[in-house]
Structures are given as structure tokens and as C-alpha cells.
């Protein structure tokens, strides 16, 4: 079997790519997708540790994270649709009004 480090590195790589996506992209939809990547990176770590210690708690929390991702995606996309309907853009740096 593989040492835990492999999984941690994979998680780290995905996490960093996700962070870069969140910070640099202008398109909000892609920002949301990058957040999904970050959550996935966390999931990999959780599952790897769950396997390491033979305890399913890690997998259970990965499940919670997936539920959380679903909630986040729903609300995020709802906001994007509402925003797009008013401003016809999905660029993050154009979201500069608190109210319209």
C-alpha cells in the first residue's frame, strides 16, 4: 500500500489549484467550481486518514462535505442567476453593488 504522503500531496495539489482558481478567475461560475475542487481536496485527505486509522468517521465527514458542497452550489448558482438576470454578466469584479 501507499504511504499517506501520496494522498496528502494529491490533496495539497488540488487544494492549491482550487485556491488559485478562486483568487484569480473573474468568472464567478468558475470560481464556484474551484471551490468544489478545494472541497474535493479535503475529501481526499479525510478518506485517506479514515483508511489509515480504519475508522469510518472520516468518510462520514466527507459525506457531510459533499452535502455542504451541494448546498453551496445551489445557493451560489441561485445568486449567479439572480445577478445575471439583473446585470447580464457573471464577472466577479463587476459585482460591486450591495443592492440594485
Amino acid at each position, binding site marked *: 500500500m501507499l504511504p499517506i504522503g501520496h494522498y496528502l500531496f494529491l490533496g495539497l495539489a488540488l487544494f492549491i489549484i482550487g485556491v488559485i482558481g478562486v483568487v484569480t478567475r473573474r468568472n464567478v461560475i468558475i470560481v464556484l467550481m474551484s471551490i468544489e475542487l478545494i472541497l474535493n481536496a479535503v475529501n481526499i485527505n479525510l478518506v485517506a486518514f479514515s483508511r489509515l486509522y480504519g475508522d469510518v468517521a472520516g468518510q462520514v465527514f466527507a459525506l457531510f462535505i459533499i452535502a455542504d458542497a451541494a448546498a453551496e452550489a445551489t445557493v451560489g448558482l441561485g445568486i449567479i*442567476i439572480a445577478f*445575471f*438576470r*439583473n*446585470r*447580464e*454578466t457573471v464577472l466577479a469584479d*463587476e459585482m460591486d453593488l450591495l443592492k*440594485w
Partner: protein
Amino acid sequence: MGERKPGDRERAITSVAKTSITDSGEKQHTLLGADELILNMGPQHPSTHGVLRVKLKLDGERVIGSECMIGYLHRGVEKIAEHRTYQQFAPYVDRMDYVAAVSNGLGYCEAIEKLLLVEAPVRARVIRTILTELQRIASHLLWLGTHALDIGALTPLFYCFREREEILKIFEKYCGARLTTHAFRIGGLQYEAYDTLEKDVERFCKNFESRIVEYEDLLTQNRIWLGRTKGVGILTSAEAIAFGATGPVLRASGVKWDIRKAMPYAAYDQYKFEIPVGTAGDTYDRYLVRMEEMRQSRLICLQAIENIPSGPILAKVGKVLKPPPGEVYHSIEAPKGELGYYVVSDGTVQPYRVRIRPPSFVNLQSFDRMVRGHLVADVVAIIGTLDIVLGEVDR
């Protein structure tokens, strides 16, 4: 809706697809927001009944406007008439409403007879009535099949064609042609009825009674059919009259108007039949009206074959037709509505002007009124329920 800022900010071109069929000056469109999507339905589309082209303005899937574009099948029938003799033009009218050629021919022949001040013999008129009513059934069968197919029911089409085939066989036996029959001649009939005509018609009518029950079993009480047709494409009686709608479209809106009763022609005054009318004026009512019309046509045929008078089949008209100068308007109740011929004669062998009032063309005018606020799926249902034939709309 907030204002969009002009200026350096890139204006979002919000199109759902990268190319959309838009006229110049119109906005690009999206499914979201206030702008609409333009969908070009036809002329190559499975359910626009030929080459009708409809430009739909959609909000999501909801129709907020429509425009019918016709003319893809224009052959200049009316102009052709001015360069043909009266007899020569008769076959052309078969090509207008090509699913009800016999009715077209009847209208034209009677219009010219009116112009010539002759009347067809009684026998000819009875046989004309029989054939025209059979044609009405055939036309309605074609409508029913395609209409059901538009709404997604595959099977009624083939059942309808089975019965239509029998009618076409009768036509074929009578005049040799099935579709563009050119069955009548100015002044009466060209052909004497063949020996077993009465028997054939009777057998067909006997069969047809149970067959029509089959269609109704498939559709009339079907929940999906009800859902797809009830409340779809409502036309009130006032609107129907205002749009000049005739035929089943008018009658389904509750107006009891049928030229066969109002201004009897051929031999209709001799027979008893009912004029079915609807109440709601929606697609379902039009369906019911047409179904009932088929039953009534069957009854007319049965009454007519009981007593076909003997006698000549052709009135005395010369070989060369030269109607006196004048004009005439004659209309009949074609399967799709009032089919009118306005013929002006200048005393030569060719008509000076022929203007045809096709029922499909006039009924199509109410299309926009009917589709507004409905979904795309209803558009095809409404095209179907109008029972248009593009050969007649475009002429």
C-alpha cells in the same frame, strides 16, 4: 430591472446559442432576463404541415409572439387562371387543397356554372354530394392522424390512413385518380358512376361507424390528450368572427354557421344532418367538432346512396365556354371552411380574374392570437388544430 451601464464595460452579448436567426436591429437573446429568444420553426420542420415557417418569440419555452411566414409553396394559381380557358383551369384547383381536391373542384365547377347560368342535373348533384362528403371524411382523417402525431400519438395516423385508403380507392374506381381527382366537370360530371359505387360507399360507411369509435377510444378520454388540447389555443366566438375564421374553427367557438345549411348547394338541401358546435373554442372542441362532422358526413353519404336519381350527368354546355361578361362569387363548405371563388368574366374563353378565398389562409390569421402565452409544444398542437394545407395557403 437595473440599468446597464454604457461605456468601457464590455456589453454582455447574451445569446443562448452563438448564432441565432435574428433580423438586423433585433437584440441578441437569452433564456433568462427580459430579452427573448427567437426560434425559427420551419419551413423545414416535421410538424409545420408542409412549408409553413413560423418565427416564434420565446421567453424560455413560452411564446410571447409569433409571425407566420408563408409563400414557400406559391405557384401563382390565380394568375395561371387568367391564361387558361375555363375547363383548362379546373385541374389546377385540385392542387390547392390537395387533401380535399374533390371539394375544390366542386366549388370551382359550381362557380363557373353560376357564371354560365346553367345548373347541373340532379343526378350529377347527388353524386357530387356523395363524393364531396367522402372527401370531407378523408380530409378530416388526414387532419386527425397528423394532429395526433403532432401531439405525440403515433398510432391514430395509421388507423386514419387505413380508412382514408378506402375512400381513395372509391375515388380511383370512379375517376382513375386518387389525390388530384379532377372528378367533376363544369356542368355536371365527366364520368357516369361505376356500378358498385353505392355498394362501396355503403360498405365504407358501415365500417366507418366502428372505426371512428376506435379513434375516440385512443384519444377522446385520454388524460394526456385532454391535458394537451383542453384550454389550448382558445378562440372566442367574437374573435373567430373577427378573424374571419370559418369551418370547424368557427363552429368550435360556438358559431353555428355552415354554408351547406345557410346557402345550400349541390344536393345538401335534400338531406338531414346536424351542425356540431363547440363551446370553449379550444383545441379539444375543434377535435370534437371534426369528429362529429365525420359522423354527419357519413350519415349524409348513407342518405344519398339510398336514392340516386337517374338521368343525365352533364348539363348542356358547349365545348367552348364563353360566359357572359360579369362576375360571380360562389362559396362552398370545404372540409377546412368556406372555400370561395370570385370569378370575373369578360366574355372571352378565359376568365378575366379568378380570386380564391382559401379557408386555410384565413384560418391561419388567428394563429398568433391562439399561440400567445402557450408553450412551444402547444404551437404544433395549434398548427395541427387549424388544419392548414400550405398548398391552399400559398396557392
